[in-house]
């Protein structure tokens, strides 16, 4: 058992206090973490800041699980923190701070060959809850609707449920995809597909965003568009490292950061 003893010893000595000083670990939403935050990080480093980043984007829920477990410095979330989550932090004696990262509109996208280009919010709800199953019911050519949604940990999944589906549950016919880009990809390849993605992902070839309640998906319509939301960073008060705080301040206030946010297709917060 010599090896296993050695192993235990190794494990025992692997102390938790050897975290790198200027490493920022960011975890959470795919909406933020797939494009925007990596590019912000790269731009931040390019601006001459000596830090390193670790980014994992598995869904907004993971932002809070990681913050709670102490395995992340910054949580990215595309939805507001839930009461039940706030309670968990309070229970552990921690207080959470909310930074507005950007604004986003969730685009309902269909294949560009689809005859449908406008839907009412009620129809959107019907389609995603599974009440409406055929394109002919919403003015398209007959064909079964293939619905693509995000995976359940995603903030977009939850936000869309609240904003676009009257808080009803998704129909069981929906397919769960790992990321925005994957939804766009499938919809682009399926003439009967429909899905939703963040504003930043709607300019892909092969898809088109539909008008929801007659409002076009354009940044200038953010006020009227029914499925719009804000994106957040979350940190723990008192536990945030100076490097992370500096980065967040930079990312949420400066013009260069705003440019990056704009380039990836979101609406800058400042």
């Amino acid at each position, binding site marked *: 058992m010599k090896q296993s003893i050695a192993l235990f010893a190794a494990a*025992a*000595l692997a*102390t938790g206090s*050897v975290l790198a000083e*200027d490493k920022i670990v960011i975890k959470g939403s795919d909406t933020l973490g*797939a494009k925007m935050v990596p590019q912000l*990080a790269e731009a931040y480093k390019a601006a001459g800041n000596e830090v390193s980043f670790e*980014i994992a984007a598995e869904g907004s829920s993971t932002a809070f699980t990681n913050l709670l477990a102490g395995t992340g410095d910054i949580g990215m979330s595309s939805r507001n923190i839930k009461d039940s989550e706030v309670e968990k932090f309070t229970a552990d004696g921690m207080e959470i701070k909310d930074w507005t990262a950007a604004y986003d509109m969730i685009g309902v996208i269909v294949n560009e060959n689809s005859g449908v280009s406008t839907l009412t919010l009620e129809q959107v709800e019907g389609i995603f809850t599974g009440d409406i199953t055929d394109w002919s019911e919403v003015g398209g050519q007959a064909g079964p609707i293939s619905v693509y949604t995000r995976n359940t940990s995603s903030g977009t999944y939850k936000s869309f449920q609240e904003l676009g589906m009257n808080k009803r549950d998704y129909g069981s016919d929906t397919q769960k995809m790992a*990321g925005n880009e994957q939804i766009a990809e499938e919809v682009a390849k399926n003439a009967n597909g429909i899905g939703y993605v963040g504003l930043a992902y709607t300019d892909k070839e092969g898809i088109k965003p539909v008008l929801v309640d007659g409002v076009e998906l354009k940044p200038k319509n953010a006020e009227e568009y029914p499925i719009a939301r804000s994106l957040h960073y979350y940190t723990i008060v008192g536990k945030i490292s100076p490097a992370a705080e500096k980065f967040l301040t930079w990312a949420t206030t400066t013009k260069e950061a705003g440019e990056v946010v704009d380039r990836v297709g979101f609406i800058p917060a400042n």
Partner: protein
Amino acid sequence: MNEFSDNQILNKERPFAPQTQKRRQTDTAVSWVFRLATYGILACAAYIFGDIIVKGAPVVFRAEAPFINVEFFTRSPETLVVFETQDGTERQLAFSDYSQWKKDNPGVEIAKEHTHSYSGGGILGPLVGTALLTIICIVIALLIGQATAIFLNEYSSKGRFINVIRLAIMNLAGVPSVVFGLFGLGLFCLFFPVITTASELRVEGWRAIQLFGTEKYLAFQGWGTCMLAGGCTLAVMVLPVIITACEESLKAIPMGFREASLALGATKWQTIRTSVLPYAFPGMLTASVLGITRVAGETAPIMFTAALAHKDKLPWQGLAVNPESGFFGRMLSQVFGFFTESVQAMPYHIYTVAARIPQSEYTRPMQYGSVFVFMVLVMCLSALSVFLRIHYRKKMKW
């Protein structure tokens, strides 16, 4: 079998009669069916290889010296920026190059800029990560596997204990890899002990034991997502393969070697050390290559235990050192800091570029390039293990 009835009657009368025309035709036809099935499988394999080679090789190889795409192997994945300059030429640059380029060419107007995650740079990070994971895994698995094989082959006698061990090994071999992932997460990432300070403590009760005389705790809170946890998980998974392969190599050594040694008065252990292990070395080598082949391709066990989609530094870069501790303390914290880093890994990287980013002319080089390199690597290892097995089997004839 109705069709044979004619022949059967014929054959009854003339048992040694040559087979009829019809008989021979059916025979040929049916064996062609079998042959086609066989080559059908190979054709599928060839198609898959062909597709990946045709689309992946151009990414890796270059027409002029040094003939390979050096950048692809010396950089980690980055965001790819695609933009057009004034004169309408399109340029693709990894993000860090892009920032540099913008600094160097301040006057140039940039149009139509768009970005693609994970598609720029190269695959150094994932390659290094996979190598590290594999090494950790193989070292652990070989140590344990070899010892187990020695026990099974040299020491054990028939009995209940040995049956249980064999049964356990056999069943371990059949457990789905994702279940190993669950197990690794539960045991290594969330349970194994670490020494930590009170501020880092995340467990309580019996799982946090204060070490007397210090501020530190021995806490059963796990190592977190790191390469050590991933390596251990993979080691557990590959153990049956290693044990079987090592045992085979031990079995191949003639009994006479041991008998001769024992007859000369050597102890059991001396015998094993001097007359068995040296000759089993090639077999062990084969076992480890076989193990590496198995482990390098696995994704599910490292998904939750070690792998990370984006990491901009290699695992040994940026390790923090506590300046107050002495030389030994610094060494220790460096070493363990290194092993508790999470890593990128090739299979997980491929999963990311396959599932998270779309296919387009800009992302395809990264996607196919990674798959091509990874496949060639694994295939070479596999070929090496086959070669070693055949080579030593031929050579080691006593």
